[in-house]
């Protein structure tokens, strides 16, 4: 049966071996840890030392405080999504559709936070917005308090806005301009055209972006911890951490929290697919006329001011305050107490330097493995006609619904008895699984742009499937591969949610080190660390963009 199906689709045994091993690997990566998590929920005891079957762990579900925790997490997630949407969508419209000047700068300020991280942004905002000696309070007298629910929502929201910006900008660029022109010709003004034509048309993209932001926000750990813990605000993600790390650990309860969180995020993704199932109309492009830019006229200064405020809050102020603090011996609004100690610490202390190198090592190899794996997956999904390729795609993008911290917890259960436990490889596996969807999506988008006849011509002229992949597909994919690699490298090096439960002293990663500096109160060393991490990411991007002349846009489009 299978053999006949394969014959029919023209797959040779060698190809079948590759296809099946990739499929098995993906199934393993996604289901092995998550099934362990499900199993653990019904057992007593700690990972590696589990006791008999029990339902005790679910006692949590009957406590009112637990559901308040769930409600709080949802509230924060929705809040973050709204903030990100309200910032990202107008910014995207202004840059894509209007004649606003300085567009490249605005675009840069909207993309930079995407390439740094919410965690680093959150760290900077501690200095800007803490209620005792935050700069916004001391300098401007603003009653800001980032140690609050609204603080978490605001800070995370401004750093999630780039996602909405990118989704919206891509949708606006792809939309046939004549839809809007037709509206103008019908006598509709700008407002009516925006609300009746433009927004409804990009709504599917908008909803996709919003659900992605919501899913990411629900699972966010770094910001939720550093802004939530001081005010004793606990969310699902931080509760999982608290339950597993603080003494005595309660892995059973952490597991139930993890399953709840994963249930919510997975549910959101299913909901999004369901909502979009009928509304997904292909936006048929007309002839590629130049995008008509809407003249802002007297509103230009207003638009520019709004963009500058965003750049100020998301990039400039946080950057400056981190620089300032990293050169001071303790957090102070004054311009004194200058020192280099925070910086030299990273290069003089062997374990700090080693942590940095380990992070670079993991990100380099992890990103490479992940690109190879996802390139093969994307190729199988979009270019082969083997049965089951849709299933492979579905499984490979599933981790989008697994929050990092839940993955960390699941990895503990799944791999604690394995010999690789305690090595960096556990983290590589966790990261590859978590971020596989990004690679599959980015490379898939590149592959569908390669005309199938280019490959067919290679096959017709005598090359095998493998040779075609290697000699024709790979070279054409190269720009997509490079930009995906950078995206994954950046994501890997800054990731903290999955790492925070999985690191021991031998596998400590740089973001976790920064987090530890925060825990122990070394805020100035932490600033230097956060800056160092940002500088590394910017340097990698700059190296690839200007050094190797690589277009980074395929990765985030």
């Amino acid at each position: 049966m299978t053999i006949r199906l394969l014959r029919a689709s023209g797959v040779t045994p060698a190809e079948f071996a590759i296809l099946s091993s990739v499929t098995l690997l993906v199934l393993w990566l996604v289901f092995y840890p998550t099934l362990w998590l499900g199993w653990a929920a019904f057992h007593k005891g700690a990972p590696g030392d589990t006791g008999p079957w029990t339902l005790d762990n679910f006692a949590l579900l009957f406590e009112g405080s637990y559901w308040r925790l769930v409600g709080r997490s949802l509230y924060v997630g929705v809040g973050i999504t709204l903030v990100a949407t309200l910032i990202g969508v107008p910014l995207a419209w202004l840059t894509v559709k209007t004649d606003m000047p300085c567009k490249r700068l605005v675009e840069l300020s909207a993309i930079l936070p995407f390439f740094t991280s919410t965690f680093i942004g959150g760290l900077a905002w501690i200095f800007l917005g803490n209620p005792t000696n935050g700069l916004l309070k001391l300098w401007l007298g603003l009653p800001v308090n980032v140690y609050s629910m609204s603080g978490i929502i605001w800070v995370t929201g401004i750093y999630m806005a780039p996602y909405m910006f990118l989704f919206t900008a891509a949708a606006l660029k792809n939309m046939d301009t004549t839809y809007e022109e037709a509206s103008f010709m019908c006598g509709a003004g700008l407002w009516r055209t925006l609300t009746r034509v433009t927004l409804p048309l990009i709504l599917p993209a908008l909803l996709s972006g919003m659900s992605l932001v919501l899913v990411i926000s629900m699972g966010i750990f770094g910001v939720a911890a550093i802004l939530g813990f001081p005010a004793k605000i606990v969310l699902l993600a931080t509760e999982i951490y608290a339950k597993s790390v603080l003494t005595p650990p309660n892995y059973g309860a952490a597991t139930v929290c993890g399953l709840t969180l994963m249930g919510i995020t997975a549910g959101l993704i299913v909901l999004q697919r369901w909502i979009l199932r009928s509304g997904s109309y292909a936006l048929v492009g007309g002839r590629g006329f130049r995008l008509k830019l809407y003249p802002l006229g007297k509103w230009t200064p207003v638009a520019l001011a709004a963009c500058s405020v965003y750049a100020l809050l998301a990039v400039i102020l946080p950057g400056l305050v981190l620089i300032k603090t990293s050169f001071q011996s303790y957090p102070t609004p004054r311009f004194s107490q200058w020192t280099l100690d925070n910086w030299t610490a990273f290069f003089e202390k062997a374990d700090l330097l080693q942590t940095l190198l380990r992070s670079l090592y993991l990100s380099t190899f992890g990103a490479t493995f992940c690109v190879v794996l996802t390139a093969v997956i994307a190729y199988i999904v979009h270019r082969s006609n083997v049965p089951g390729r849709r299933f492979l795609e579905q499984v490979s993008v599933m981790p989008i619904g697994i929050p990092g911290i839940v993955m960390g917890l699941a990895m503990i259960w799944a791999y604690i008895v394995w010999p690789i436990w305690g090595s960096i490889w556990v983290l590589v596996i966790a990261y590859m699984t978590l971020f596989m969807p990004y690679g599959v999506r980015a490379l898939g988008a590149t592959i569908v742009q390669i005309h199938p006849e280019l490959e067919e011509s290679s096959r017709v002229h005598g090359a095998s499937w493998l040779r075609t992949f290697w000699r024709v597909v790979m070279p054409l994919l190269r720009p997509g591969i490079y930009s995906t690699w950078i995206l994954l490298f950046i994501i890997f090096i800054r990731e903290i949610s999955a790492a925070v439960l999985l690191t021991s002293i031998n596998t400590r990663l740089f973001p976790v080190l920064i987090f530890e500096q925060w825990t122990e109160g070394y805020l100035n060393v932490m600033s230097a660390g956060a800056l160092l991490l940002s500088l590394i990411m910017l340097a990698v991007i700059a190296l690839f963009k200007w050094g190797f002349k690589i277009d980074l846009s395929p990765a985030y489009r």
Partner: protein
Amino acid sequence: MIGIENLSKVFGETHALDNVSLQAAKGEMLVLVGPSGCGKTTCLRCIAGLERPTSGRIRVGERMITAIEEGVFLPPEKREIGMVFQSYAVWPHMTVFENVAYPLRCQGARGDALKARVMEALKLVQLEALAERYSSQISGGQQQRVALARSLVSAPKLLLFDEPLSNLDANLRLQMRIEIKELQRKLGFTAVYVTHDQTEAMAIADRIAIMEKGVLRQVGTPRDIYERPANAFVASFMGTTNLLEGMLAAKDTAGAVVTTASGLEVRVAVAVGAAAGDAVRVSIRPEALQICAAPGGVNAWPATLRLATYLGESILYRADMLGHGVELHARPSETYPAGSAVTLNADPADCILLRE
């Protein structure tokens, strides 16, 4: 009805429109035609207000909608012009009814009056039955009709068509061509219609304006344009033609004689504005050249038939006439083997003198 004066549009270095002036009378169908990149679409988009010209004025009725020098430039939504787009631009998130109702809603129409007018417009294009469908549920031809109904529903005085039929298959194209023409007769709107298809232009136009590289090359009725092209570009763009280069040898009361470099003498009936000694060209349509039995007489040239292509209603011969390659249509019964020596003949009235 519509008047365009000295319209220019410069994109960087290129002149997309170079000082174009055009008029169309009330109820007239003016077709802008030309090869791609000739500026016809830019011209249409300037009328619509979707493109801002570099200079010039556009007037619709008594209303000045664009006068760059005076600082007048109405936004598209204030121009009260209907437009049918090449991609139809039927909004996929609205039903057919809502698409057509949109212009009326913009004017504040509500309730039964709105419904009646929308249904009336849908009836004009025979789409009443599909009012509740979405664009993904109807065919390309039907989308085209929705776009047409939408542009008609608010009864604009002026309608713009931007290559509306180019995405339809050949049969549907012929049918829609007739329907648009009939609707125009019935409703009496003025229309500016852009196409790159010269047959479509001939079939639908009251008058044709031919453009090349941003410049208007000739304006006239289809018959004028085809039978009396003003220049070689128009002659060869509108249909096929044989162009013979030569010099005006002599003028007389019966017209003039043109001599080509290889010594071919062509008598033309009309030679207004040209003087002896001018470098000129003569356009002879393939159907104007005939194979005749005996040599001798006016415009009778010896030729060798090279290649015959049987087309059904005629035979297309390629022939060599004193070094000039020409094409001619002959009746299907006039079969000659390749290499036959014949005499070709054309009426001086069908030999058009071109001065450029």
